[in-house]
């Protein structure tokens, strides 16, 4: 691996840890848990596949950023919704929040897999 690859790798790992910590401090524990589940799924099921480690780590970082942002916006959405529409909005958010998390985890993971598969194919074509 080149020096730049090591730099990108360290930056990505730092970024991932940062996302998890920020979600714990500024969002809520549920979002931290969701990020942890996403990371576990991604690392155990995607990292063993063929493909550059750099791509996988960058995708993992991107996933954490997407997840953290979504959970943050959803929290804002919940607070503003309760302010505008009343307490019952809490119930709607309680139902929608897990679905929103579900959508990004599954979508992001499957597109990442497709990206890795394509990059593996392009690598083989070049050879």
């Amino acid at each position, binding site marked *: 691996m080149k020096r730049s690859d090591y730099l990108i790798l360290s930056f990505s790992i730092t970024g991932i840890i940062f996302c998890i910590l920020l979600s714990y401090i500024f969002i809520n524990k549920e979002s931290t848990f969701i990020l942890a589940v996403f990371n576990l799924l991604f690392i155990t099921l995607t990292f063993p596949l063929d493909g550059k480690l750099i791509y996988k780590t960058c995708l993992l970082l991107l996933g954490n950023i997407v997840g953290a942002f979504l959970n943050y916006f959803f929290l804002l959405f919940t607070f503003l919704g309760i302010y*505008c*529409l009343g307490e019952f909005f809490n119930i709607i958010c309680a139902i929608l929040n897990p679905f929103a998390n579900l*959508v*990004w985890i599954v*979508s*992001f993971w499957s597109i990442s897999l497709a990206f890795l598969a394509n990059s593996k194919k392009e690598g083989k074509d070049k050879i």
Partner: protein
Amino acid sequence: MKMLPNLNPTFIILILGIVIFIFVMFLPAFLELKKPKDAGPKMIMDYNFSANFAMKEIPITDLEETHGFDQTLVKRIIDAVSVLPNLEV
């Protein structure tokens, strides 16, 4: 009497943002459905009659067993031949 709730513009932007986000997450799926690049079906591994026939009918000579050549001798011959120039035109 207030008939409509007081909807903060930020709240509306957030609703739109979340809707767009979910739409974007499903977008690759909709794209693939609309214009499939791999609609399938998966090719099933089928019996390749010609390849199997060739494997059975055309014998591959085993230098060691059939002709009794020593492997180290074969290697020396290969090394010697490899330094010769390529005469292909």
